[in-house]
């Protein structure tokens, strides 16, 4: 056998066995090389952040006015993050779904133009989105605001929601789509009563992924909502957000208090993002297991 293979693959069998071993060894080394920093990131954030999260004050109090003072929490950032991400979701989800349905079901020049813009957005660095919103909203409004931040996050979410919804709509099994047509259902009825219910879990997964992408963004918030060291629930004011707070405290990490707060907020943000992703994944898996669609 070995000699036959050598004829085919053109090497001596010893040489080939050595190369095989080298290949396996290199692959394992690569995996370990990749896992070390990743494990280091999590381990470090967890060890340094868990202390803050165990205190209820971390969620209920605002950071002290003096960065270097001990105590306080991240309430202002939590409220800002939830309000801005929430508003962004309310804006991005209907618009993203509308564009996806329009592009898949009707098509045409307008749909192609919109899809092109969505594709551009999808690959756009999020800091450029921040510039767009600064140039159009912040300059017009005359001041930074949570509203501008929410708009920037909505633009970040939009392509994620649209692309995943399109994929789900495209995946609707043919017999079901044809069945709906054969029953004489109009397009809007079949979209609302057939495609949407079948694709619902997939669409929800796309929305969750969009939220998880937006909630961790820092760059588009820098010159839209700016950040705020104090508490405000008012979307018309500059607002704090978890990523902005981590960024600011990281740059002041020479102070132990700022550093601790940064790690606490970072761990919290990572847990939120992981939770959203795992929830989305669970929904998709459940759909597959149920076997009602492919």
């Amino acid at each position, binding site marked *: 056998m070995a000699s036959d293979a050598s004829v085919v693959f053109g090497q001596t069998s010893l040489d080939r066995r050595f190369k095989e071993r080298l290949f396996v060894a290199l692959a394992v080394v690569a995996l370990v090389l990749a896992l070390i920093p990743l494990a280091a990131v999590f381990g470090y*954030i967890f060890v340094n952040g868990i202390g803050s999260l165990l205190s209820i004050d971390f969620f209920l109090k605002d950071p002290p006015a003096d960065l270097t003072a001990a105590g306080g929490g991240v309430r202002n950032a939590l409220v800002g993050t939830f309000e801005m991400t929430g508003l962004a979701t309310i804006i991005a989800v209907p618009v993203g779904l509308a564009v996806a349905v329009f592009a898949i079901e009707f098509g045409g020049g307008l749909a192609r133009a919109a899809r092109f813009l969505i594709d551009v957005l999808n690959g756009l660095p999020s800091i450029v989105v921040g510039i767009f919103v600064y140039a159009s909203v912040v300059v017009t409004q005359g001041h930074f605001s949570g509203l501008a931040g929410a708009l920037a996050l909505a633009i970040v979410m939009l392509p994620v929601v649209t692309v995943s919804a399109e994929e789900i709509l495209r995946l609707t099994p043919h017999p079901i789509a044809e069945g709906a047509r054969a029953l004489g259902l109009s397009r809007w009825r079949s979209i609302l009563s057939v495609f949407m219910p079948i694709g619902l879990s997939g669409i929800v997964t796309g929305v969750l992924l969009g939220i998880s992408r937006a909630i961790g963004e820092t760059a588009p918030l820098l010159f839209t909502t700016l950040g705020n060291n104090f508490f405000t629930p008012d979307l018309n004011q500059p607002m704090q957000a978890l990523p902005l707070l981590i960024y600011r405290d990281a740059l002041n990490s020479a102070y132990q208090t700022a550093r601790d707060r940064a790690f606490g907020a970072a761990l919290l943000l990572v847990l939120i993002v992981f939770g959203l992703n795992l929830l989305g994944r669970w929904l998709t898996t459940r759909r597959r297991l149920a076997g009602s669609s492919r």
Partner: protein
Amino acid sequence: MFQTKRVTSREGAPSLGSFHRRRWTGDLTLRAGLAIVTLGISVVLAIMMVESFADASPVYEKFGILGFVTGTKWAPSFTIYGAWPFIYGTLLTSLIGLVIAVPISVLIALLLTELAPARLRAPFGIAVDLLAAVPSVVYGLWGLIVLVPAMRPFEQGVSATLGSVVPFLGPPTPGASYFAAGVILAIMIIPIISAVTREVFASTPRLQREAVLALGGTRWDVARTVTLPIGRAGLLAAVVLGLGRAVGETIAVTMVIGNSNNIGTSIFAPGFTLASVIANEFNEATETLHPEALIALGTVLLVLSVIVNAVAVAIRNRFTGGARSGF
């Protein structure tokens, strides 16, 4: 099937006359509504882009597009703006990131498609999804506090030995540098590149792989003669996708690159990328034309990322006939 039944029982069989009218108005309303939303968002996005370009136009008028892009000096207090130091920083850090990330990602993808038992694949998929989702400010925080200090001795060692021969590896070695930024970028894009590559490799025809094994080939022979040649285009698309992410990455890079307006002669020198100089200077931009110049850098970044993504799409379409919808 279940869905079809439910719809049938609920709808019954409507009479044809009322049915047609309802169908017509319903469809028209839906179509018009969706068209308005789609048109609206397209117009809004287009206006935002045009407005940003318009805001940057005084800079382009003063220096010329070519003069701005190739200008090597960035001195806001003298109203001199050249984008080259940041374009250089963006390209160099992305290149360092790719050089580190691509071989590791390809090997990981091969390990998981050719070597590892199938039951390891699902956990890996979950882990990769999670890693790709970690916010960049978190990587930046870790990079600033752990990675930069840890790399300083390595950078000093290399510059003390190789640096005397190759100036590109020489001093200064403050820790925060193009190289540190490249390393953090590599850590961030490995999950993306390896996930896409693994999908590409996993879709290579099973029969061809088994044929090589049946001929007495080793698993390396499978990788060399089947997986890699067939997956080449997909691999290239994955690399370009990673490049796109690296080019636009902002906060993590800003936190570890050291912030310098000059073109560093060494990869261990501090610098700036397009995205990081915007993030760092925008809120304090008070000099003449300074905000406009930063917005102009944003338009350069916009063009750069559109080019990179267009290349990725072109590669994908060329090798899949445009049939697949995207990664």
